[in-house]
């Protein structure tokens, strides 16, 4: 176990290092000069060179990357070129909103996905099953910006049940969480359905049925806990999918998280922020996967860590 953990940690660090190198290199190769952006259109060539020197952007790639890494170790992600604030501060101030949205999305996808999968499994082969599976298919395939705008239009503009975008109360959280959750819910519904069908075929379920236990008791006490385990183990991996989703969803709903920060930074070619958000996201994904792998054997004894 310890050896496994150690190996996984080293792997994770290498992945993060790789991500930082690739992102840094791509941004370095971008045919846009951040210095000219900072210096503005009325700057003389001399001013431009001065700023380039101050930021160390006149140095070769390797030197620049090495300096970045050295600062990174002490938690310094540099200063935004456009906003001129510390990137760490910008990300830290927006992280709670993104985490909250993720929790909301996980709740939504579990509630929706698991119940859809459960019903479909129990009603296997019926019209209900087919309808639910088509719905899950649509949920998985629909682009999030479309789902988001649709939900916004129906539930916020037409019905006024929820506020139109913004942040602050639980009511603000519902629609963005749902938008993010619908995608995962589709996956979970399908996984839950097949896992449940699998469990329902098991001998112990047949035994329970033969004993004359109530249908409800069989489902919720005997089948569900076993069917749900492999699904739960997936949540860690979801973080990666969420990291992609928050960029779109946060922009649509005006949710002040790091996805929105990333989108703005990309549009304005604000390199330090793009770097920072990419690293933080990569860290979250690596951590999520690591946790998923560590937790998996505890909930499903068939899985062993090697």
């Amino acid at each position, binding site marked *: 176990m310890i050896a496994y953990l150690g190996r996984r940690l080293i792997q994770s660090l290498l992945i993060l290092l790789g991500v930082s190198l690739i992102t840094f290199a791509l941004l370095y190769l971008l045919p846009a000069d951040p210095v000219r952006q900072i210096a503005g259109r*009325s700057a003389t060539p001399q*001013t431009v060179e*001065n700023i380039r020197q101050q930021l160390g952007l006149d140095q070769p790639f390797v030197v620049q990357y090495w300096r970045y890494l050295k600062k990174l170790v002490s938690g310094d992600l540099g200063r935004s070129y456009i906003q001129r604030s510390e990137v760490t501060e910008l990300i830290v101030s927006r992280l709670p909103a993104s985490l909250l949205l993720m929790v909301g999305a996980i709740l939504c996808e579990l509630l929706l996905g698991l119940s859809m999968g459960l019903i479909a499994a129990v009603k296997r082969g019926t019209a209900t099953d087919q309808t639910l599976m088509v719905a899950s298919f649509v949920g998985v395939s629909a682009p999030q910006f479309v789902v988001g705008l649709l939900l916004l239009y129906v539930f916020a503009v037409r019905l006024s049940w929820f506020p139109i975008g913004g942040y602050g109360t639980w009511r603000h959280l519902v629609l963005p969480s749902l938008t993010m959750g619908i995608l995962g819910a589709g996956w979970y519904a399908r996984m839950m359905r097949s896992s449940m069908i699998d469990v329902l075929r098991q001998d112990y379920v047949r035994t329970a049925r033969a004993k004359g236990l109530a249908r409800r008791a069989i489902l919720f006490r005997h089948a569900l806990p076993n069917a749900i385990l492999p699904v739960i183990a997936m949540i860690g991996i979801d973080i990666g999918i969420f990291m992609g989703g928050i960029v779109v969803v946060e922009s*649509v709903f005006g949710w002040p998280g790091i996805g929105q920060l990333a989108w*703005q930074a990309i*549009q304005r070619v604000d390199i330090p922020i793009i770097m920072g958000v990419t690293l933080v996201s990569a860290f979250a994904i690596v951590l999520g996967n690591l946790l998923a792998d560590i937790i998996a054997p505890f909930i499903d004894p068939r899985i062993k860590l090697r």
Partner: protein
Amino acid sequence: MKKFLASTVAASALALMLGMTSVRAEDAVDPNAKQGGAITITYKDDVATLDPAIGYDWQNWSMIKSLFDGLMDYEPGTTNLKPDLAERYEISPDGKTFTFKLRHGVKFHNGREMTADDVKYSLDRVTNPKTQSPGAGFFGSIKGYDDVAAGKAESLSGVTVVDTYTIKFELTRPDATFLHVMAINFAHVVPKEEVEKYGADFGKHPVGTGAFKLAEWTLGQRIVFERNADYWHKGLPHLDKITFEIGQEPIVALLRLQKGEIDVPGDGIPPAKFQEVMADPEQKARVVEGGQLHTGYVTMNTTMAPFDNVKVRQAVNMAINKARVIQIINGRAVPANQPLPPSMPGYDKEYKGYPYDVAKAKALLAEAGHPDGFETQLFAMNTDPNPRIAQAIQQDLAAIGIKASIQSLAQANVIAAGGDKAGAPMIWSGGMAWIADFPDPSNFYGPILGCAGAVPGGWNWSWYCNKDLDAKAAEADSVVDPAKSGERDKMWSAIYDKVMEDAPWAPVFNEQRFTMKSARMGGADNLYVDPVHIPINYDNVYVKDVQ
């Protein structure tokens, strides 16, 4: 003998000559204005910085104007200069020395009185390369600028504090734009102690002398301004509070405006909704239309074949169907025939420009030795509507045989290509077009049409350099006497007419501004399309539903 000049208003000049410290005409406050109340403005993007030495986008530009003041300003809703933190000024006959007398009793938001030392400190700071100000170049005419810019000096030798309330500027050349330069945000006055306290984060903790002070800044969510009760201009501002909500998509902002939740969508009416809004009389009544100091143009790289031939450039001018391009943006513009926008002094009303004439354009191309046209590239920024506009231009060019492939790229990449001599044959300027820093005709020349801008990394993307015109521009800018401004404007008109003969650009349109507001907002229409405050003049607007 020195001439004393006060404002553009004759009455106040008279008042000063008589030694009166009267309230100037433009200081009059709207008698219908109501005091108090709060408004909400929305924006999609984060506000970058509120440091006047650094902020240089249309979003923070107007916010900074409400937090800080400069020696000069404009009468609300107009392009007419007036003294602001200065009570009056004098210009030496040779146009090289400007002396400003400061207002007494003006206080920073921290309670300390603003003095001439603060003015000097602010200018030394903005020109210091360490500040990395995008506006440093505006102060190039001040004596000692080059030494400061090169890091050889810490202080501008041409700026002298005469006494607590008097400051003197010596210039290296007569500069008719200097009063405008003293009105731009980069020249706004900051208190040294606060700048030193916050260092690089001063932009997040702005302290100025302006009508509003910063009350709250929650990153990524909102910025709140509250009324500066000690504002030197009695009776202003009218509003108690302005809340800027950040992260709101324009379409969401419009929906919220329709529901009465907000007062002004800062990013404007989303293009997809424009016709719907304008077709509804109730909504249309709350839209204010005005000109802006903007021209959208196609640059042609005059150093690259075949655009090194003036006939080819003239042919392009005649090939573009401007009316059709304007249709693409729902008619939110007027056709342009010269670099200057119509609301800019020096705009030549008599000039007719190149007509839309496909046959003549083809003939010109044939004369230039390209009867069958040629292949080239048209660069454009990749956000809507620019790719669509580029496509319309592409079709127009195809009609005369020019096959232009469109390079649709991120803004920074297009700017980089334009600043590279061999980078881009043609650029559609949309999304990056020149919007004047101050309402003076010279501002459309130097950086974008003059030789000074035709350098690597410069903004003269047509790489047009006419030394003769540069000399004429310098001559026009040496006419410092405001009484001769009409004469100077004519000189500038002639310069732009000559530019159009050489046709380094094909001017396409001048964008109009459409500001939408809630029904409760009051104040003259021109405050909502103020040429220097975008979207609105926060200091002078008010709400009708208070008291």
